[in-house]
């Protein structure tokens, strides 16, 4: 399945595109913001199932309006008759909120109601969760930076981190554009994206390193192009199998995993793209050649 596609000729236009999307993502994250779920914003979430299919959103809304809850968000969730209610946090201690909502709905709705899920996160805990999420993502980026630095040269390390930033920011940017909820499982997805994208980048970098030593007459563009082509079928096959698994979760895994699997699908697509069109061009930018590798050569070759 050896292809000979001239990737390096497209580096420039791809980089302009990446840069544009990256900046747009940053702008969206800054100005439109991210739609934090109750994990990170605090508040109450109630998932309920009504046995009567005739219950509609407006009935739930109007019955909840009778108690003063402030900012309430009701939406359909999965099957018909399933609803998700979200209430924003107003004060630290609202231990009576959930029982009150339950009572109101049971009294006002003409249906048997099953409360399937209740989550209540206080403002202190939610800010701690957000903080540890940010720390976890930053730490993983730093850990990757060091790992690649140890295994390769600093130019590779910078390239892989640029690619990771690219992936994480654009994934979050798309979440911002689509107003999708950011919760704990999205942080898990972002970290997995970091791992996956890195995985992809490492495979290509590994080959670039090998080819730089093997074909010392080729320049970095040619070497990168050769390496990307050589590993292309692997890149595609692994992306396909991973996407098959993820699509299966997205379609069949239920409502709770939908956001997670969507983030992962985005991440795999963007991560695959960035390994070829972001991570490799960075090496070109630094004018990496076989000479760059000489210092470390003895250590690396197994």
């Amino acid at each position, binding site marked *: 399945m*050896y292809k000979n596609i001239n990737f390096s000729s497209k580096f420039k236009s791809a980089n302009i595109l990446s840069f544009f999307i990256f900046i747009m993502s940053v702008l969206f994250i800054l100005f439109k913001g991210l739609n934090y779920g109750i994990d990170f914003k605090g508040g109450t979430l109630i*998932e309920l199932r009504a046995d009567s299919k005739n219950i509609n959103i407006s009935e739930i809304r109007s019955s909840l309006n009778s108690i003063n809850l402030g900012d309430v968000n009701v939406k359909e969730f999965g099957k018909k008759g399933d609803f998700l209610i979200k209430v924003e946090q107003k004060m*630290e201690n609202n*231990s009576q909120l*959930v*029982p009150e909502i339950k009572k109101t709905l049971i009294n006002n709705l003409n249906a048997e109601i*099953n*409360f*399937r*899920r*209740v989550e*209540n*996160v*206080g403002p*202190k*805990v939610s800010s701690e*969760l957000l903080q*540890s999420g940010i*720390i*976890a993502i930053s*730490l*993983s980026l730093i*850990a*990757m930076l060091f*790992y690649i630095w140890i*295994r390769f040269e600093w130019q590779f390390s910078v390239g892989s981190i640029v690619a990771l930033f690219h992936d994480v920011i654009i994934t979050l940017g798309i979440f911002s554009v689509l107003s999708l909820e950011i919760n*704990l*499982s999205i*942080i*898990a997805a972002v*970290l*997995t994206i970091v*791992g*996956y994208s*890195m*995985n*992809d980048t490492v*495979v290509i970098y*590994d*080959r670039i390193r090998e080819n730089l030593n093997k074909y010392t007459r080729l320049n970095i563009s040619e070497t990168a192009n050769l390496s990307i082509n*050589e590993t292309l079928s*692997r890149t595609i*096959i*692994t992306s*396909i*199998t*991973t996407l*098959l*698994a*993820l699509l*299966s*979760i997205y379609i*069949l*895994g*239920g409502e*709770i*995993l939908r956001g997670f*699997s969507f983030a*992962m699908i985005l991440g795999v697509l963007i991560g695959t793209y960035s390994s070829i069109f972001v991570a490799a061009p960075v090496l070109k930018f630094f004018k990496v050649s076989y000479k760059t590798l000489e210092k470390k050569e003895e250590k690396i070759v*197994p």
Partner: protein
Amino acid sequence: MLNFSKINIFLIYLVFLLISFFSILNFQSQQDPLIDKKVNLGLDLQGGSYLLLEINSDPLIKEKIQSKVIPLKKLLKDNNLNYSNFKINEKSLSFSVNDIEKFKLFFFSKKDNFLNPYIDNYNSFELDLEEVDKSRVQVLFSKYGLLTINNSALKQSIEIVRRRIDDVGTKEPTILQRGEKRILVELPGLKDPERIKNLLGKTAQLNFRLVEVNEEFGVDKLVSEIGEELNVSKRIVMSGENLIDAQPNFNNQSNRPTVSFTLDRLGAQKFGRATTDNVGKRLAIILDGKIISAPSINEAIISGSGIISGNFSFQEATDLALLLRSGALPTPLTVVEERTVGPDLGEDSIKSGITSLIVGFVLVILFMIYKYKIFGLIANLALIANLIMLIGVLTILEATLTLPGIAGIILTVGMAVDANVLIFERIKEELKTEKSIIHAFEIGYSKAKITVLDANITTLIAAVILFAFGSGPVKGFAITLGIGIITTLYSAYFLARHLTSIIVLNKKEGKVNL
């Protein structure tokens, strides 16, 4: 890379079989387990409640600093120190004293210091002194004094929480300390946590105090449950500490629920004396600052037992008895995080999780066979072995499987074939230049080794960080993802390689269909 010694082959399959054996344990009958190990289902899969409680030690500190007033004044008097302007603040005591240096000497004395004991564990005094100006000082708890108060309050709270939850009788509750101020409670199978939340939300400080008719100094105005405003003496006749048992009952005459209680010897004495001296007066029974009831004392009660009758339902009487039995919490507890999943949602999650796992698995298997024919089959065998080992390791660790954890397994299925894809693609390349098939496979395997390792270690790093920082279900994802990487490497580099070697070595110089 294709030559395996007999001992190697033996070890490779021995490890595989040993780990696989543990995965079977999950399917043994519940009654008579051979080895009692299995993968636990997380609360999101089996249904249940997760509560994070936080103690608030501020009222306790206020109480403790107030208890220092008398010993402090005594210390000042005993040592002929003149003080003035004595003030009791929220968390400190402040006053002016004529000789600060002399006061310090006594204040920070390690010998027989009743006011300010020395805490050996921390090499620090319980109290600290701040000089506000030349003559005025402020006494407050030291950092370690506060820590000691907080720690003992937390330990005590955990104990009381455990007693209350055990008393309600839920199955296999988990009660753990989390950090310095928090208690984690997991209640599997619990459908509605409201009752437990109610029980844990009450400190249950019980007091018996006399109702005074005329308003004078030393009286609190309290409202009873039926709305009656009463003047209650500040002096506590007896408190809940003296209670040894409490049970819900029915009053035969009024047919209303009541709570009967039994006192210890000291309590019985105190109670006997107070009721003897105050026949005709009313005695207020106060729980957390609210009067439950205020019956008249008809006769002296010296038996050491009594009955609380109030305006409650049988459920409330049961809960009150439970609270009194388990004792008072040292400080109020608040629920700072709650996650409850109903059992039917858990079942749905398991169903959809397993369906998507099977579908994802079948899709990947079909794709691999389409792509690599016989070697795809080997990759698939490795993949199946990988899954069995993954479940085996989870069983050995008795890890908790969550919904994101199942997602982690599915993702492992998708990514696991990567190791074999990397190797096969490399071999294909080598086959183009290399005449000997065996040689091509040899080189392919050894060249791909570093890449496979590098690529997987990066994902492993992400999984480890996720495990360290994630909470609950997300941790479950990190576990399956991390273990999945290790079993993937094992199955690709040992199992699949050995199977490949059998095929390649038997084909000799024929054609290989890769």
